[in-house]
């Protein structure tokens, strides 16, 4: 037996059979590695509901290429939604980042059209929009609505802020002069800022149209406004009329600003008119106080200089007025006749924008405007109320020079500078009428009437004496002498006529006179010749005149 021992121990040496487990190891490892390599990442996506999501069936697609499948759908712990566990293919590995987005594609019928019809037959699926970041992520929150634009689409993403939600909704157009250049991607109410945020996307190359001075406004529906300029109806294209939309443009007279990046915030104006009213950045506040009715003067009413708009009415400072001297205001109403300058004047805050006067929209223009007003007031610059529209009764503030007015100075109300005012229009007419009536009222009418009565009494006496006089005149006229007088007068006139007949043209005397005058004329002509002779040769009266010899032409040698 002892010689058997070595044969057993010899079995302990390494034999070729160990290749088998090595090969098995290699095969097993290669299978594992291959499996791992072909295995994509598993991610979770949170949705609000699991509507039409089925574990093991619902596909995840990227540009309609299957890249994964939903493995299971489970409720969240707090029942606030569902979590879908998704197994993606290995090709999806480099696409998962923080900004990767997932949403369920279902058939949708909306104002913007019908989408996702193919899912009626093929079943719903989850669409993926690849991210571009550098960080890896495995947990995502799915979008409830499909995003309007792919994340990497060329263009610019902007945010519009509005006080009202208006009639805009997701998917509606962004138009530039009626041409569709983008869309509203999402909207949400920002409860901190108490305003609505719209995320919009403007496609390339139209995003180059947008700069820091661009203004956005709502073109939804029809807007009807009544202002000092009359009624105005505005409506956009048929598309935006039905669906709503946002338009943008550069306000007239404003230079293009700098280019913009993604995420810039803009104010969304209510209408284009709203922009025209507030297109400028720099402005200056003044207060004008009116002692007359400010009915029809509304915030936004224009402030004009000789008909050129230079600003707008901001508001009536009623709060500041009543807070300071309510008693004055009330008593002043009753005392206005006696004390018309007591503090009952209504302060109106106006906002002047130098850029409206073709000045550059900057701080220097503000200073220039301030100086112009300071210099203008001593020369008669005054603010007045004017009725802008007789139909609607809207008023506006007019600023103009009234050199005949009493000199006044700039005042102050609260923190504002006040521009002196004068009353015009109906208010002024009213005042003038009132003062005229006051003066009329002050006239001593009764005394005058008494005086007139006295005068009339005297006149009565005079009239009776006049009657007597006339009677005596009558008597005189009726007397025989006066009758005789008239017949004598007739006789005298007859003699005068016969006398005049003597010097009539066909009378002898007239003809004799004519002959006399003719001979006198002849004598005068002779006299004329004599006078000429005497003047030529004064001594001709004394010396006889020798006739002048005719000149004889001489011949030259």
């Amino acid at each position, binding site marked *: 037996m002892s010689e058997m021992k070595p044969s057993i121990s010899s079995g302990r040496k390494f034999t070729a*059979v*160990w290749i088998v487990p090595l090969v098995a190891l290699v*095969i097993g490892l290669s299978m594992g590695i291959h499996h791992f390599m072909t295995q994509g990442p598993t991610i979770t996506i949170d949705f609000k509901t699991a509507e039409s999501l089925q574990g093991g069936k619902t596909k995840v697609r990227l540009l309609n290429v299957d890249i994964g499948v939903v493995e299971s759908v489970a409720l969240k712990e707090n029942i606030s939604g569902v979590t879908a566990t998704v197994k993606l293919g290995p090709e999806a590995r480099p696409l998962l980042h923080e900004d990767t987005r997932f949403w369920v594609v279902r058939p949708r019928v909306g104002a913007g059209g019908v989408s996702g019809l193919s899912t009626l037959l093929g079943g719903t699926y989850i669409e993926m929009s690849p991210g571009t970041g550098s960080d890896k992520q495995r947990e995502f929150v799915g979008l409830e609505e499909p995003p309007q634009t792919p994340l990497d689409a060329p263009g610019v993403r902007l945010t519009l802020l509005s006080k009202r939600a208006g009639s805009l909704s997701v998917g509606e157009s962004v138009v530039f002069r009626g041409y569709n250049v983008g869309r509203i991607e999402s909207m949400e109410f920002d409860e901190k800022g108490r305003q609505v945020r719209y995320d919009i996307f403007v496609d390339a190359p139209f995003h180059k149209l947008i700069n820091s001075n661009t203004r956005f406004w709502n073109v939804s529906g029809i807007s009807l406004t009544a202002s000092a300029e009359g009624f105005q109806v505005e409506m956009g294209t048929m598309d935006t009329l039905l669906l709503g939309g946002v338009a943008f443009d550069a306000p007239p007279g404003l230079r293009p600003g700098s280019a913009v990046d993604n995420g810039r915030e803009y104010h969304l104006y209510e209408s284009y008119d709203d922009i025209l009213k507030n297109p400028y950045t720099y402005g200056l506040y003044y207060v004008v106080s009116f002692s007359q009715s400010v009915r029809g003067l509304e915030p936004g009413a224009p402030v004009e200089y000789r008909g050129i708009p230079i600003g707008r009415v901001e508001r009536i400072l009623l709060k500041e007025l009543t807070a300071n001297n309510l008693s004055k205001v009330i008593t002043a109403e009753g005392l206005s006749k006696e004390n018309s300058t007591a503090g009952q004047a209504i302060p109106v805050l106006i906002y002047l924008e130098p850029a409206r006067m073709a000045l550059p929209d900057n701080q220097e223009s503000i200073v220039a405007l301030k100086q112009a007003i300071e210099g203008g007031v001593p020369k008669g610059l005054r603010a007045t109320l004017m009725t802008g529209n007789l139909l609607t009764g809207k008023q506006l503030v007019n600023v103009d020079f009234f050199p005949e007015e009493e000199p006044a100075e700039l005042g102050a109300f609260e923190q504002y500078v006040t521009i002196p005012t004068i009353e015009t229009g109906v208010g002024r007419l009213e005042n003038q009428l009132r003062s005229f009536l006051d003066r009329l009222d002050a006239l001593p009418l009764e005394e005058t009437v008494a005086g007139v009565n006295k005068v009339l009494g005297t006149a009565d006496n005079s009239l009776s004496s006049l009657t007597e006089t006339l009677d005596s005149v009558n008597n005189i006229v009726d007397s025989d002498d006066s009758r005789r007088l008239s017949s004598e007068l007739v006789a005298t006139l007859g003699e005068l006529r016969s006398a005049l007949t003597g010097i009539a043209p066909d009378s002898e005397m007239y003809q004799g006179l004519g002959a006399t005058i003719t001979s006198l004329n002849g004598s005068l002509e002779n006299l004329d010749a004599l006078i000429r002779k005497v003047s030529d040769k004064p001594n001709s009266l004394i010396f006889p005149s020798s006739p002048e010899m005719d000149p004889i032409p001489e011949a030259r040698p």
Partner: protein
Amino acid sequence: MSETHATATSRGLASCHLCLKLVDSQRHHCPRCGASVHLRKADSIQRTLALLIAASILYIPANLMPIMITDQLGVSIESTIIGGVLLLIDMGSYAIAAVIFIASVMVPSGKLLTMYYLCWSVRHASPDTVNQRTITYRITEFIGRWSMIDVFVVAVLVALIHIDNILVIRPGAATIAFASVVMISMVAAESFDPRMMWDQVEDSDE
């Protein structure tokens, strides 16, 4: 136990592995068929262990990877062995689940573990347990072939169900791994020489 233990070894005889002729154990070659003569199978424990380890390694992918891929209307479902069992339990088919579980999980793993134990027991176990171990070996050898049931099921399904675009069943990578596990473990059981267990008893008697 004296007569019963009069073994061939103690008489200086060995059995030829090829033609089973009793040969003088001192001879190197069988006089009848010319094959090498060993008293016991050469490197039996080492071979068995190596094959067992290989089978164990392959047993991991056999369970983790899908054994069957069902393409149903474009939706492809991969199922592993355990997954299939759990699915059957979910569906309430406990009997079928039990059959699959026993045939596909318990039997192969039990066989591997048993073989490990037998290899270990040749050197270290108490000789008193030799009868139980003999029975264990016999059972292992008997049921080992049945653990291929899973592979057979897959093979049959793949062959039978092939309706293009509607329902197609494809074998998964685990099928090969699982078949390898079963085959290698069968070879391992074959290469194990049970006589070594009884040699131990003989040695302890001496």
